[in-house]
């Protein structure tokens, strides 16, 4: 069970903080034509889930994968997308594919602190997993791309990553005879275009879904599926540690952007919302599925273990104006930290091996 007392005290603390912030912030907000009035304290009632069963219901796996109306699923498209995803010829050197950095062998990441791009040069950020990307609302650590289709073309063209001009890529794909009929079957009459390439890759990526983990079996009612320690960790996750304020729902993310106080100079989302204080050093909240296979952690890959991640949150990170108001010292005990780790480990499934496709010639 989550500790309702801690939740309530947080709300009270938040209310007091809001009054202070309102008083301080009044002179600094409202930079456009709309006029922002003074903030008021308001009594609110939280509809917290009543009991463990209601809480568990919030973590139930969805029954189907959502595909967008303008790029619906077809088996032909997913099969083509899989070949393209694993095809190194999508990079200018013919040495790197999407799967180089988003590999099924590492929970659909690369197991490195930061990605490695064109010429084996290190990139600035950790390669995020593509697991459960079908449910994402916005893409990249800094949220600069709105759809998975846009995302698919990003690293291909990025000079630091696959460094491939789209015109050159279309010519290269057109020169590979076996691709033509596959594009025709997937996109009749549309040909080999950047749009069809992106739609095929995105369709395949949407099929990459974390499989049932011990946690899911417990959510479905089998009390023996996870340990008592992990169950206590679930309570800490939703209660005292407040992890679920951001890592919520079955995929353990609400896709929000938060500065969690990592000592990095990277401003993340702040590049796109420079006037918004809370977006400086803010990065997209990643999901937690398959987490055991995805170390090292964080947007900069700076924390090697789950224990280090929990220690970071317990400490609260760098206190600066942009830091999320949810970040503060938690006062977790060694036992609670161990319980959290035990719980997090239940989110990893026994992933089936992924067969590398035979590529068109």
């Amino acid at each position, binding site marked *: 069970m989550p500790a309702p007392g801690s939740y309530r005290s947080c709300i009270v603390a938040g209310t007091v903080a809001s009054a202070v912030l309102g008083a301080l912030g009044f002179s600094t907000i409202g*930079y456009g034509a709309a006029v922002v009035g003074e903030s*008021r304290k308001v009594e609110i009632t939280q509809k917290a889930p009543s009991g463990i069963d209601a809480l568990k219901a919030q973590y139930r796996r969805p029954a189907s994968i959502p595909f967008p109306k303008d790029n619906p699923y077809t088996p032909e498209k997913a099969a083509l997308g899989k070949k393209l995803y694993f095809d190194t010829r999508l990079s200018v050197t013919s040495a790197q594919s999407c799967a180089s950095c988003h590999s099924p062998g590492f929970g659909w990441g690369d197991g490195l602190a930061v990605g490695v791009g064109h010429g084996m040069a290190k990139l600035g950020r950790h390669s995020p997993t593509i697991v459960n990307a079908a449910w994402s609302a916005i893409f990249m650590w800094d949220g600069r791309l709105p759809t998975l289709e846009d995302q698919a073309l990003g690293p291909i063209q990025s000079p630091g990553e696959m460094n491939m001009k789209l015109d050159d890529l279309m010519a290269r794909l057109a020169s590979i005879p076996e691709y033509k009929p596959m594009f025709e079957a997937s996109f009749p009459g549309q040909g080999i275009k950047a749009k069809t390439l992106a739609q095929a890759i995105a369709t395949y990526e949407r099929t990459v879904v974390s499989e049932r983990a011990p946690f899911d079996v417990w959510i479905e009612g089998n009390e023996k599926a996870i340990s008592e320690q992990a169950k206590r960790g679930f309570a800490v996750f939703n209660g005292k540690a407040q992890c679920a304020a951001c890592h919520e729902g079955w995929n353990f993310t609400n896709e929000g952007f938060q500065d969690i106080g990592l000592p990095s100079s990277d401003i993340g989302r702040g590049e796109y919302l420079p006037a918004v204080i809370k977006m400086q050093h803010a990065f997209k909240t990643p999901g937690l599925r398959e987490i055991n296979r995805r170390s090292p952690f964080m947007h900069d890959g700076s924390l090697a273990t789950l224990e280090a991640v929990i220690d970071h949150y317990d400490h609260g990170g760098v206190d600066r104006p942009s830091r999320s108001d949810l970040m503060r010292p938690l006062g977790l005990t060694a036992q609670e930290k161990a319980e959290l780790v035990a719980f997090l480990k239940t989110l990893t499934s026994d992933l089936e091996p992924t067969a590398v496709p035979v590529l068109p010639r």
Partner: protein
Amino acid sequence: MRTIALFTCVIVAGFSVGAYAATEVIHQQGRVFSAESVSIKKGDAVTFLNDDSVPHNIMSATKGNEFNLGSQAPGTSTDVTFKEAGDVQVICAIHPRMKMMVKVTD
């Protein structure tokens, strides 16, 4: 004495109603705006009430009606008065699924 107290209550109540009468209230519980769209007259206000369990950062970058509430803690209510006619896209900078439109008419 009782009459004065009653009179005061009526006055206070009257002020309160006056203050809220022209205001649409948008709730944010569960990381969702309570309406996808609201229509108001130019010069009217929308009240953004954070009745959620986490902070929000409500803002708009729509030209002529830009605003930024900054981090709005749970249990905080803020009025925004829109001065220009047009469709104003309002978002939460923190939570990208939170989007709504304020339609401001002349």
